[in-house]
């Protein structure tokens, strides 16, 4: 059974390391904040200028001057800090944020990512994605394994205009967990009940299988 979006987020949450700073992109990545493992202390950075983001505000307590990069109203945790956009990207570009979780339209087996533009369609822009993927030391992509037409989004080579090259370290999809290595994509885990063969069928890129592939534990 393929994972749903919350399960993808939950699996990614297991990658959170204690005492680290994390930037979560829009969509599935945002959900990761709901599944922080017990005893793991992480601080969320949002590129519009906040460190120590907390949960959404209670109904009626929204502050229009307090939003995240997805333009959602937020709160801050005790010990938070607010700053301008250049300082925010100094944190990102300067490698002070330890983990970035992003959505993607396509990922290639060498870790290229495409998530900002579909030729022929209205282009909304890259926002902070290009800065994030160009600098982050650890990037996990959260995505559906295939697009709406059932075609693989995990490719030998990206077909869409790319956001960054050789940057993705791990992919967590509804079907599998994969590591991007210098040799290619290593299949680490598979969704419960989904066979290695099925995953390879929906994956255009070649999957390296080093050992028995366990099911994802959620």
């Amino acid at each position, binding site marked *: 059974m393929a994972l749903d979006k919350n399960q993808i987020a939950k699996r990614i949450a297991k990658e959170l390391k204690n005492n680290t700073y994390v930037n979560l992109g829009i969509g599935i990545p945002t959900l990761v904040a709901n599944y922080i493992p017990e005893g793991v202390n992480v601080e969320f950075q949002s590129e519009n200028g906040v460190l120590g983001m907390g949960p959404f505000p*209670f109904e009626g307590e929204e502050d229009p001057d307090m939003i995240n990069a997805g333009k959602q109203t937020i709160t801050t945790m005790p010990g938070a800090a607010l700053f301008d956009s250049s300082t925010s990207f100094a944190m990102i570009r300067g490698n002070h944020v330890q983990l970035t979780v992003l959505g993607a339209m396509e990922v290639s087996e060498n870790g290229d990512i495409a998530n900002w533009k579909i030729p022929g369609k209205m282009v909304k822009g890259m926002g902070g994605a290009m800065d994030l993927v160009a600098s982050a030391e650890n990037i996990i992509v959260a995505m559906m394994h295939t697009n709406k037409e059932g075609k693989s989004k995990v490719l030998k080579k990206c077909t869409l205009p790319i956001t*960054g090259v050789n940057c993705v370290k791990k992919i967590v999809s509804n079907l599998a967990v994969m590591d991007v290595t210098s040799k290619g994509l290593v299949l680490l885990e598979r969704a419960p009940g989904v066979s290695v063969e099925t995953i390879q069928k929906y994956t255009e890129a070649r999957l390296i299988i080093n050992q028995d592939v366990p099911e994802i534990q959620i």
Partner: protein
Amino acid sequence: MINKKVKSIDEAIEGVKTGMTVMLGGFGLCGIPENCIRALSKTKIKNLICISNNAGVDDFGLGLLLQNKQIKKMISSYVGENKEFERQMLNGELEVDLIPQGTLAEKCRAGGAGIPAFFTPAGYATEIGKNKEVREFNGKPHILENSLISDFAFIKAWKGDTAGNLIYKGTARNFNPMMAMAGKITVAEVEEIYSVGELDPNQIHTPGIFVQRIFQGEKYEKRIEQKTTRKKI
């Protein structure tokens, strides 16, 4: 102290002319110079090149200038929460230059700081890096980006004094401090204006030297784009 306070919104936007390059602070609709945008939308000024992280929504923020077709070109990182924007862009009525958000922020800061160009890894090997100089530092390729300055910068702060010192609130700070630095004439609108000596010099976010005009704005609407809440338990 140099008194930067202007008497009216007309005085605040005086000198803005057709074809000029203007910066506008804000991220989405958060921390945008509402009063200045409203005032500009009532003028006949056209063909503006607007540098702003986003382009507003249809009936608020920069959307007001788009509706009037006052904007010739947008320089932004993320746009199109806005039907009129989309229409004008697809029709070729509006030019759009997309720049990675961190690069955009740094371009403004650099422009204001007299740094004409800098290297950044963002955009390397993408469309953004096309025709830009590439150089490796520590084994990693970077591209050379030029800085930005503008004829006018319109920014929004929370508190300000007549010397132009500014304090922002929450995430409404965003691009405002860098654009304040990069405007040849920087116009700051604030929610609360104070006499000199009332703000703590230690807690100023934008020193007054970067601000040429300041005034207290009216009727802040502060629209929320994505109201997200949780239930009280």
